[in-house]
């Protein structure tokens, strides 16, 4: 900070911060790091139940709806493509692309969440049906909660996009929301691969 700048500044002192990482971005990194630790604790429980205790996965007589989850995975991964398209569009000043990308991403995220709720209703076991059921619901439910949060963020991003916010020069809100949505997708890939496929 320039030594002579103090005299011109009004209000509370400017916050000290490193220039290596922008403050908002650092906040998102710390949030995602805490989320990785949260998911990590559930995956540790999964590891102990399945590998250390040797619990059959899925525990008979239950079955996991692998195909429905695969369709859901495709929907969620596609939603990452559309939010990437939305971000790239606004970087080029294409507002229609941003709006269409955000609406499509929101709709696909909502479809994923509704499909997961239908899956819960039909899967045939509950969280109290042994360690397998508990871990399944904890991991997929925790992820579902994150999708819900992501949908809330997407909703406000979409509303802002239709109200004329964001531009080629100023689209930080889209970047941050996009990072969160990709994080949600990355976590689903991990959950789907470990819980349903491996």
């Amino acid at each position, binding site marked *: 900070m320039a030594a*002579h700048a103090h005299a011109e500044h009004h209000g509370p002192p400017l916050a000290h*911060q490193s220039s290596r*990482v922008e403050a908002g971005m650092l906040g998102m990194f710390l949030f995602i790091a805490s989320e990785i630790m949260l998911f990590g604790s559930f995956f540790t429980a999964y590891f102990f139940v399945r590998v250390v205790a040797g619990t059959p996965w899925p525990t008979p007589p239950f079955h996991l709806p692998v195909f429905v989850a695969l369709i859901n995975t495709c929907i969620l991964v596609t939603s990452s493509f559309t939010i990437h398209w939305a971000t790239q569009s606004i970087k080029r000043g294409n507002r229609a692309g941003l709006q269409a990308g955000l609406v499509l991403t929101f709709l696909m995220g909502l479809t994923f969440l509704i499909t997961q709720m239908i899956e819960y209703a039909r899967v045939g076991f509950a969280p109290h049906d042994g360690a397998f059921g508990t871990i399944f619901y904890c991991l997929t439910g925790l992820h579902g909660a994150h999708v819900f949060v992501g949908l809330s963020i997407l909703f406000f991003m979409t509303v802002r996009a239709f109200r004329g916010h964001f531009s080629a020069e100023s689209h930080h809100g889209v970047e941050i929301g996009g*990072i969160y949505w*990709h994080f949600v997708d990355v976590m689903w*890939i*991990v959950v789907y*691969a470990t819980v349903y496929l491996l």
Partner: protein
Amino acid sequence: MKLPRSEAEAYRLLLLTIGYFALIVAASWVNRWLGLAVFIVLTLGVLWRSFGRRDEPPPTRHVEHRSTEGERRILVIANETVQGGALREAIAQKSAGHRAHVLVVTPALNSPLRHWASDEDGARANAELRQAASLRALERLGVEARGEIGDADPLQALDDACRSFGPDEIVISTHPEGRSHWLETNVVERARARFDVPITHVVVDLAAETEQVRDPD
């Protein structure tokens, strides 16, 4: 490990994650032990990419000059060694025939824990004290300068100052070899490789009260 710093980087991370798990799942369907082997190989590859390539120097950055006609912008970076005639001579030599506009950057040295906790107030307060002393020392030498507090990493502090100040010359003031942490970490050479402006190294031995100018050539 390098975290994604933009939506585009997060998108690439997602694609890599899909590829990573697709290979592991496909291999484990062939044979469970093959799946484990693919997991180990890919994970080691990811770790090597993340932690094993830190020594690659960053590309040279073009510094936009912001000096007006008849003006010479000189960026001085020093922790506590802005004293002595050598520095004054270096500045006088660099700005010969021009009006010198000098910016002194003092890095806010901090512990790694405090840095990551964004607890920089103490480090900045200390840096401001050192900087005030540096500016007084330069004033006594007849050099008019203004000050700025920079990042704890001298290269990062230079990078930030280059963006906002647009210098024509950079002067790095250090302690002599053996007592300078910056020389131990090759700050001067790394700065010369990183910025496309002339960089002068001024060695100030505060204990022996001697100074020395080391130009690149």
